[in-house]
């Protein structure tokens, strides 16, 4: 099945999105029989990718289409459960690569919630009525506050270790200690009790913020939502609509408006070409609003995002992505300059800010994509501003020495588009070489940087002349795609994320890496493993060797 990522609130099957002035209500009410595949039932508000695609869409639409929203209340339409987490039978029968990609996508969505809270002034309240287990609790953890019903039964839990022999894969372990600051020994207790913690103890351990009796629950949630909505200052009226992303596809060619994705199955590589704006982009807030999702900076990056997701889920044996660009780099720089200026006024223009935040998220998605990334800087390409970030996001870059080959830097590379570790891609590139970074910063407004200077400044990996370029690139691609994909994934993830750790990098490196290791161990997914045997008549048998 070819997995699609586009949806719309009218087409949601598992969520209901209701906006009432400044409060958005997202009600999770999973349709058991309408998961992505038909051979499992999504009981007790458990979820699969289809549920999370809708959540990601809803968060994005709240930011762009309902910018007046200050509070998002996430609640459940299921009587018994807030959510029982990722569906275990779905996980049990999924391939390893699907599980990994599924967890990555759900992790990104939870981080987008936190990004919306931090940068867009949206306060997330989780109204946890009933069982809040595993991924259900991890969804709660991604919210700013958790209100749990106190009915003597409802508990929050991370039962993955004791019940399934795997880890909570959506940031649970990290957020319990790093975000909610639960003491580590209490966290140890919590993560090994399959039934979880309820009532006052959940509050005193800081697993939730408040518990409220069932009869007062709705009122308490409502009161809290109104209270927060009254506190924050946000007076935006005009919204924009996110138009559907149009993609023509045939024979492994995916043609969007600005983005072109070409898959070479035989060589196991994909080429993504991004085109600069064809005409000068608008400069004023009004004109920009009028363009809405047709604005290049939004449209091109939405398309790029979709292309990356398509690749991740539908073409798992494509090991390498080549990034190319084309068009007029000046249009990119002008467009981004306007956006940046509009966010630096005393009353920043919300839409410009959201467009730049979206750009940041798409580039982060590329950073954590487990494929070799290579950028080819050729004549008439447009590696300027935000697209120059692709050069720095890539594991390697090859530049053809030519009078028409340039890179152009702008202030957008300074602090608008940080990586998950909080560094800009240039800071990461020149980590430990502040002088070099300073040199490069001086070039931000100096116009096109030619191949020779790029080499001197260390902006690209290799600069090659016309005699060598083609053959060198071919050899590199062939060599790279012949190496062990597992070792490459590990190597790339280590080298890309230099420097400090953040909650985000911990989730993608420490937590996901361990989880992905646990996933392939026999103790989880072997014939006698805990995940394989969950719900079966047989009990797991562990190999007790510690590695």
């Amino acid at each position, binding site marked *: 099945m070819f997995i699609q990522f586009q949806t719309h609130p009218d087409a949601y099957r598992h969520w209901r999105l209701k906006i009432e002035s400044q409060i958005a209500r997202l009600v999770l009410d999973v349709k058991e029989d309408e998961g992505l595949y038909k051979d499992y039932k999504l009981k007790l508000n458990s979820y699969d990718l289809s549920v999370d695609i809708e959540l990601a869409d809803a968060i994005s639409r709240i930011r762009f289409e309902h910018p007046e929203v200050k509070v998002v209340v996430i609640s459940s339409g299921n009587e018994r459960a807030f959510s029982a987490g990722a569906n275990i039978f779905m996980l049990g029968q999924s391939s390893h690569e699907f599980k990994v990609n599924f967890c990555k996508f759900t992790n990104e969505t939870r981080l987008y919630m936190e990004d919306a809270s931090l940068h867009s002034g949206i306060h997330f309240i989780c109204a946890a009525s009933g069982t809040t287990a595993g991924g259900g609790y991890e969804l709660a953890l991604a919210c700013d506050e958790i209100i749990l019903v106190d*009915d*003597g039964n409802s508990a929050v839990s991370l039962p993955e270790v004791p019940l399934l022999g795997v880890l909570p894969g959506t940031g649970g372990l990290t957020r319990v200690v790093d975000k909610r600051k639960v003491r580590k020994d209490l966290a140890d207790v919590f993560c090994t009790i399959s*039934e979880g913690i309820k009532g006052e103890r959940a509050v005193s351990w800081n697993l939730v913020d408040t518990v409220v009796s069932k*009869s007062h629950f709705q009122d308490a949630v409502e009161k809290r939502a109104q209270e927060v909505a009254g506190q924050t200052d946000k007076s935006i009226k005009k919204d924009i609509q996110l138009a559907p992303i149009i993609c023509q596809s045939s024979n492994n060619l995916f043609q969007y408006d600005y983005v072109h994705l070409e898959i070479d199955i035989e060589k196991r590589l994909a080429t993504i070409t991004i085109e600069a704006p064809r005409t000068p982009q608008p400069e004023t807030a009004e004109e920009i609003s009028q363009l809405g999702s047709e604005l290049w900076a939004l449209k091109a990056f939405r398309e790029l995002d979709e292309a990356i997701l398509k690749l991740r889920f539908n073409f798992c044996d494509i090991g390498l992505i080549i990034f190319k660009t084309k068009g007029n780099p000046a249009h990119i720089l002008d467009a981004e300059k306007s956006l940046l200026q509009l966010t630096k006024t005393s009353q920043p223009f919300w839409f410009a800010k959201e467009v730049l935040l979206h750009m940041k998220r798409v580039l982060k998605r590329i950073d954590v994509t487990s494929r070799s990334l290579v950028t080819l800087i050729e004549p008439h390409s447009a590696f300027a501003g935000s697209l120059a970030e692709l050069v720095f996001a890539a594991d390697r870059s090859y530049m053809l020495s030519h009078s028409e080959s340039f890179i152009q830097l702008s202030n957008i590379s300074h602090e608008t588009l940080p990586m998950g570790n909080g560094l800009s891609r240039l800071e990461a590139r020149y980590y430990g070489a502040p002088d070099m970074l300073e040199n490069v910063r001086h070039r931000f407004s100096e116009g096109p940087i030619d191949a020779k200077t790029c080499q001197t400044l260390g902006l690209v990996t290799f600069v090659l002349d016309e005699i060598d370029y083609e053959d060198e690139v071919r050899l590199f691609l062939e060599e790279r795609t012949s190496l062990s994909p597992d070792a490459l994934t590990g190597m790339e993830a280590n080298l890309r994320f230099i420097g400090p750790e953040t909650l985000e990098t911990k989730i993608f490196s420490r937590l996901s890496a361990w989880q992905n290791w646990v996933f392939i161990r026999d103790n989880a997914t072997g014939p006698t493993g805990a995940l394989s045997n969950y719900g*079966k*008549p*047989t*009990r797991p048998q562990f190999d007790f060797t510690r590695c």
Partner: protein
Amino acid sequence: MVAFSISHDRIPNNVHLSDDKRLQRALEMWQPNFLNWWLDMGPQGFQEKDIYLRTATSVDSDGWAVFDYVKMPEYRWGIFLSPPEKNRTIPGGDFAGDPVWNEVPGEFRASLRRLIVTQADTEPASVEQQRRLGETCPSLYDLRNLFQVNVEEGRHLWAMVYLLQTYFGRDGREEAEALLNRRSGNIDKPRILSTFNEPIDEWLSLFMFTNFTDRDGKFQLLALAESAFEPLSRTCRFMLTEEAHHLFVGQTGIQRVIRKTAELMNEHDCDDVRPFEAIPLSIIQRYINFWYSSSLDLFGSEQSSNAATYFAAGLKARAHEARDYEDHAAKTGHYDLEVLKNGQLVKESIPLRNAMNEILRDDYIKDNEKGLNKWNIELQKHHIQHTLYLPHRRFNRTVGLYSDHHFDPQGHLISKDQWEESKTHWLPSKEDRAFVKSLMKPVTERGHYASWIAPPLKGINALPNDFEYVKI
């Protein structure tokens, strides 16, 4: 707070309570709270009355049934385990044949605790559900039986609390406290199983409950009696002897209602005995349909991963696992279930271990058929041409495979419209319930019985029917 001291005399037991400092300390904390709960949530209006009750003072044949007048708050709730069987081995699951566990294995602590807490929670719940029934008793004999059931549910709670406090450490003590803090029907702190949150406010429902719902309890106890965890097994075996009395109250209670109806039908040569303040067979049938089907739900889903896990670990097994089965691992067998596929019922084979709930439900159904037979014999004795029936297991279910669809009492798939149209023929209507409630007038004169129920064939402890079972 009610003052209380722990002594062998006060708490009859066969668990060496006087030597067990830890248990004593735990009970010293718990016991006053239990008594407060009993005064607060136990039978209303009769706490100070002398009631002719049976108390178990030991597990010997002369000690398990000592009869005397007692005020309920002074009832001696004891802690009894059936005597140990020598060299008992684990009856079922992966460890079948190994020696039983006298301590809880760490690996299964959480699961065992959950099983015990879920079972334990039903005991105080039913006392709470029935607390106002004394006001409308049909006779002193029935009133006494109600209280006997109530104090024994209280004792069953004790038995489960003993296990929690002795074997489950601090968590167990907390769970024991929580058992006294939940309240049947309270939206903020409900009892765990939803059936136990419905009030029982008239006696026909009480008899139905003690026949059908307590019979579920019997089979749960039979499954737990086959546990690898020896103290649980021995506790449940002793509880089963008391549970038998509760079933007797239900079984004979319904039978006496039927007898009275049959007598009036013959006397007046009519079917509708409502003018004579008795309950027509049609209403009795609808009550049977309701209580039987809702009790079937208590066994859980037909195909259950929890059931498989519990069986595999030996935490519980099939009823009479050791006695009645040969393949105790049940690892390879299958069970044929009727499932709905595209609007058709088709047989589907599922692994035996996943079908443990259904196997227990099968036993329950067979047991009920015996009871039903006795009621129909009662009708035959009175030459009444009417047969009461048990509806099909698919009828009116809210749990499991069949809960998403509608079935008639014969088990045929019907549409939602057909269901809506016919359900008042099959289940008690508002009018039925109002009528039954209208009959509930207290009868507290010795030897007198309400208009809708016949006297018992014999009294308690070989005493006459007009014995003063409760001193009003």
